[in-house]
């Protein structure tokens, strides 16, 4: 059995909000999901064909909305199928490939995440969570595990994580 996704100008992404898993299509015709999420001038995202499930029963679809609006500040994290879907315009050129990525571990409401984060050489990891910097962290090669049901995992080539909801972070600078 093979799973494939074929991508034109719409992408599908997974949004984890509280105890909900919301899968929906997002238009990347004008900008990536990363650009939209990092944009501090808007507080919401619009999705098409949003499927809603409890995080503990990921394949049980409890509702579907043709058009949905989600509040950006309520998103714990969003997973995308490809890295390009999540990166901002300025992150796409060169710096998001190569050896600068370090393993990172995060805890969020209901979830723990493992992945890689770009960490410039002398940057103190604490700065990553500073409220003065941007509202999201961009991780790649991400596995999200449900804390109380660790057998349930979600994967994405990239994740956009809401820093405000991160309760613990561990970075291994020399790994």
């Amino acid at each position, binding site marked *: 059995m093979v799973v494939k996704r074929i*991508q034109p100008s719409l992408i*599908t992404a997974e949004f984890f909000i509280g105890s909900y898993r919301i899968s929906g299509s997002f238009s990347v015709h004008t900008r990536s999901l990363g650009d939209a999420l990092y944009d501090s001038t808007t507080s919401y995202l619009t999705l098409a064909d949003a499927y809603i499930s409890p995080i503990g029963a990921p394949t049980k679809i409890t509702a579907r909305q043709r058009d949905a609006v989600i509040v950006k500040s309520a998103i714990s994290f969003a997973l995308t*199928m490809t890295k390009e879907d999540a990166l901002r315009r300025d992150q796409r050129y060169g710096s998001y490939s190569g050896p600068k990525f370090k393993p990172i571990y995060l805890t969020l409401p209901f979830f723990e995440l493992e992945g890689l984060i770009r960490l410039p050489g002398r940057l103190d990891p604490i700065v990553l969570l500073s409220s003065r910097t941007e509202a999201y962290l961009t991780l790649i090669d991400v596995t999200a595990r449900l804390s109380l049901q660790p057998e349930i995992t979600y994967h994405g080539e990239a994740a956009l994580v809401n820093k405000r909801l991160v309760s613990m972070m561990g970075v291994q600078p020399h790994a």
Partner: protein
Amino acid sequence: MAKILIIDDNPDILAMVRLVLERKGHHDVTVTADSQEGLRLALKGHYDLLIIDVMMPQLSGYEIVRRLRKNHATANTPIIILSARWQPVDRQASEEIGADLHLGKPVNALELLQEVNLLLKQHGGPTQKHRIIAVFSLRGGIGKTTVAVNLALLLQQIAPTTLIDLSPNVGHCATMLGLHPRGDWGLLLGQPTTTITTQRLATLMTSHASGLTLIAAPPHPVQEGELSGEQSERLIATALARTPLVVIDLPAQLSIATMAAIRRSSHLLLLGGHQRPDLQTTIHSIPLLESLQSNIMLVINHPTPAPPLTKEQVEKVVRYPVAAMLPYHASAAMACLHGKPLIEEAPASPLTKGLKYIARLVLH
């Protein structure tokens, strides 16, 4: 060219996928946005491949796949799940219910076409699928059993076929085939439905030299009781588990067993004559039968040498499309009496050609 059914409540997806599969893939595509209608169509087993959305009102794609996998006619039909979800848990869910491929939306139709063609190839291409062909007429004496027997023999030349003679009043399929049945379905009367198993059915079956299998009617009229709807369905399903093609010679009465068989069939061959009483019966039969079966093929037979009507004339009277016209053939009745079916007795006759045309219709 394969027959493909797409069930998706998104009209944009339906239009796009249909266009590409038809224009670029040259496939015969049926689409429906109604999940229950989709299930009903799919259960008939007409399709070489199914493409099913997951989240739809009324019935989810997962539930549709579950039901199709329990159905003999669709147990092995290749199924592609189209979903906006692409997590391993989603793929696993598709796999567990028996789908062959999980594709994430939004879908590129050209790549979908590649996946469709690949899957068809893996399953041996658009092959002969399971078919249940019920032959019925509310009017006796117009050659219904002759058509059923010869159609079954023609289909047997293509794939293993079972002929079920459901007549409760001494059926004649065995006589027409020159067979002496070693069992008949009358032995199932009064038995629990669960006793109708493949092994049990094997003891009731009689083989013809062509390889055709016959489940004969009881040799005496059934006086007490009859097959229940559930038994009738089980009998047909069990026969279908043995052979991919099943032809049912239905009695000329709408009993519970007959109606269950009509519902269960993939094609209802409604046989009509060309005389005025025959046409009247046909006109009044169609609305009732349409409530039981959507795939009705009206066939007009000419069992007597009376001047035939044209197809257009019949259609004008009955206000229903005629799928085929069978011409009169003098030795058809004699062939039955000799126990040598018409297609063997007169393989080049216009009637045999007409029957071959019907066989092609039901297969494609």
